[in-house]
């Protein structure tokens, strides 16, 4: 059970003929985003503009951008593939991804906007001792962002290889994605990132609506005919013919605790994902932040409801056998598009998937580089003072370049077909176990202090990474037939049998934060709680939008 199953493409996938339409659409999207970056670059000077788009993004724009930042290739291609191959269990991801936004809306978004400036750590450092808290929060942010990014880049390389493999190799595809995201973030900062995400969200939503409508047209727009077709889907396992009801739970997960652990990571992880949280700094005030969460919830909800049509639709119209033979789960949505809409639509959906990856990696890059520049460089090393004007932005640009370069090298080093799905699962687990407990406690618990924050972050980080390493996602004995690149990293029987660490690591993160707090007293942190509460609830003294 991987959180976002970017399944490795089947080795036996036939060499795809060059899909020039897809190539032209890729190039078209890239050209559009470079134009956006060019115009953004002229405005992206100064910290507020570079890190927070001048805080002048409107509610619906930020809603689209949050949706664009969040709905990764893994959720478009991965969930479609998982529902197509494992039925109902895949749909549980769809549910969790939306409900998670209630945690963001009710508990985190508004206080964060009112009390912070550029990064997640701003809220934590508000009343705690800034240097230790920022150092470890920055580490957590960079870990979450780079791991998530590598999974996306390997996915992008695989996708491009499957579509236009004879023109662009895996390595070239990874380089193209990496270079583009560096260009967006280094030159265009948060403004370019935001607009790339908005364009991507519009493309993804329209692509999904078209795909769903075309699927339903195959069922004469009859919901009951559509669901009726799901109860007897046949597939082959060796020589045996299996007929399964795709609406029945349990095709993928056998252990009930797996369901619970996954649900915990989803519903608490989203509110701790740094690249989502920093989006709330781009709006003028908490009220707009709230409106943008609602916009995002509408878009994200509609999108995940549509996974019903293109996920189950792929199972029904193509069948699991066909998907398995033609590139595996990640190709389910593009293959379905070809089946119902022909080659042109296939090219469009593939280009949408590519756009999806670019927008998400850009969001991750800016989150990692803002955190390094603002939290680590300016605040930890230089005690919160810029040595020279514009230094923070310059450091962020250099960091974005370095982070991008490292991700390219790692994604090429891992190679196509690498089993990297656990990296995304890890990002959610770290966000839920390390980030969320300390965010909630610093906003709502007066007694909370630096020792609690540091121990909560450290224990959350270490326990989620440690448990993933000994879980079946990394530690499994593969059959001799498995290709070397797709083999699990540790060939040993798993020591921890659940695939998601959430059920253990999330309580551990909370517990460590509580114990750390109770072991020491920090009167200054308690005194500043009044200030934080007034700020968080009234917006008094919050960062303003920049004027023109």
């Amino acid at each position, binding site marked *: 059970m991987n959180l976002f199953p970017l399944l490795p493409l089947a080795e036996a996938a036939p060499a795809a003929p060059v899909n020039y339409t897809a190539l032209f659409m890729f190039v078209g999207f890239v050209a559009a985003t470079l134009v956006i970056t060019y115009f953004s670059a002229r405005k992206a000077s100064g910290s507020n503009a570079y890190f927070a788009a001048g805080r002048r993004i409107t509610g619906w724009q930020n809603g689209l951008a949050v949706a664009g930042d969040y709905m990764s290739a893994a959720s478009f291609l991965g969930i479609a593939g998982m529902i197509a191959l494992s039925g109902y269990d895949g749909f549980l991801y769809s549910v969790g991804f939306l409900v998670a936004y209630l945690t963001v809306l009710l508990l985190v978004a508004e206080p964060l906007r009112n009390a912070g400036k550029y990064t997640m750590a701003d809220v934590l450092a508000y009343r705690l001792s800034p240097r230790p808290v920022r150092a470890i929060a920055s580490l957590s942010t960079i870990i979450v962002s780079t791991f998530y990014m590598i999974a996306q880049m390997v996915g992008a390389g695989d996708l491009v290889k499957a579509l236009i493999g004879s023109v662009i190799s895996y390595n070239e595809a990874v380089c193209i994605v990496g270079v583009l995201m560096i260009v967006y973030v280094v030159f265009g900062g948060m403004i370019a990132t935001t607009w790339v995400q908005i364009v991507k969200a519009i493309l993804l939503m329209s692509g999904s609506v078209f795909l769903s409508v075309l699927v339903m047209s195959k069922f004469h727009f009859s919901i009951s005919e559509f669901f009726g077709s799901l109860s007897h889907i046949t597939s082959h396992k060796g020589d045996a013919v299996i007929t399964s009801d795709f609406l029945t739970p349990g095709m993928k997960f056998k252990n009930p605790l797996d369901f619970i652990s996954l*649900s915990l990571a989803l519903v608490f992880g989203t509110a701790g994902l740094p690249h989502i949280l920093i989006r709330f700094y781009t709006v003028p005030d908490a009220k707009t932040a709230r409106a943008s969460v609602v916009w995002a919830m509408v878009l994200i909800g509609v999108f995940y409801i549509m996974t019903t049509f293109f996920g189950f639709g792929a199972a029904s119209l193509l069948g699991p056998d066909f998907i398995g033979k033609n590139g595996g789960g990640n190709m389910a949505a593009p293959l379905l598009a070809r089946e119902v809409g022909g080659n042109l639509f296939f090219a469009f959906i593939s280009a949408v998937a590519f756009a999806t990856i670019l927008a998400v990696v850009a969001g991750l890059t800016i989150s990692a580089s803002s955190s390094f520049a603002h939290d680590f460089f300016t605040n930890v090393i230089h005690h919160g003072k810029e040595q020279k004007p514009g230094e923070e932005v310059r450091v962020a640009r250099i960091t974005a370049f370095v982070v991008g370069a490292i991700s390219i090298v790692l994604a090429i080093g891992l190679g196509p077909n690498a089993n990297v799905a656990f990296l995304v699962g890890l990002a959610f687990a770290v966000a839920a176990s390390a980030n969320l407990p300390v965010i909630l406690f610093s906003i709502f618990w007066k007694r909370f202090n630096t020792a609690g924050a540091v121990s909560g972050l450290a224990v959350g980080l270490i326990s989620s990474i440690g448990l993933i390493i000994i879980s079946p996602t990394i530690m499994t004995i593969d059959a001799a037939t498995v290709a070397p690149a797709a083999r699990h990293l540790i060939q040993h029987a798993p020591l921890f049998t659940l695939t998601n660490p959430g059920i253990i690591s999330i309580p551990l993160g909370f517990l460590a934060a509580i114990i750390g707090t109770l072991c020491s007293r920090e009167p200054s942190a308690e005194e500043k709680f009044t200030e934080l509460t007034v700020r968080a609830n009234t917006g008094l003294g919050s960062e303003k939008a920049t004027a023109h």
Partner: protein
Amino acid sequence: MSSQTPRDFTPESAAPTDIAPLGRTGSKPAHEMTAEEERGSVDWDVIAADADFKKLLAAKIRFILPMTIFFLVYYFTLPVLVGWFPDFMKTRVGNVNVAYLFAFSQFFMAWIVAGIYVSKAAGWDKDAAAVLAKFKK
């Protein structure tokens, strides 16, 4: 004042343009103040002790806490039922089953909770503005 303002030497790129242009004198307009500059200008304790502010906080907690518990319980009922009561979840309802319908209902639960929250929060915005208006010098 604009006639006396010296030329703006702010460089084109990587400049801290969120700070007032070089050479301008006098205090900044409110929208250009950063949080740090506003920090000393407010007596937080006085606002925190205000009866209306306390009432606002209490109202928020009274709504947010039960709502959070409600959506978490409603959401976690899904994996619990799927995990431990698979036979109940397989019960057919027309061409679908209880498992799908309950999962589907989660989307509407999320939208309804969000809708109620937003309408409540609009009232809190007004209350917060009223509290701040009292302390405006």
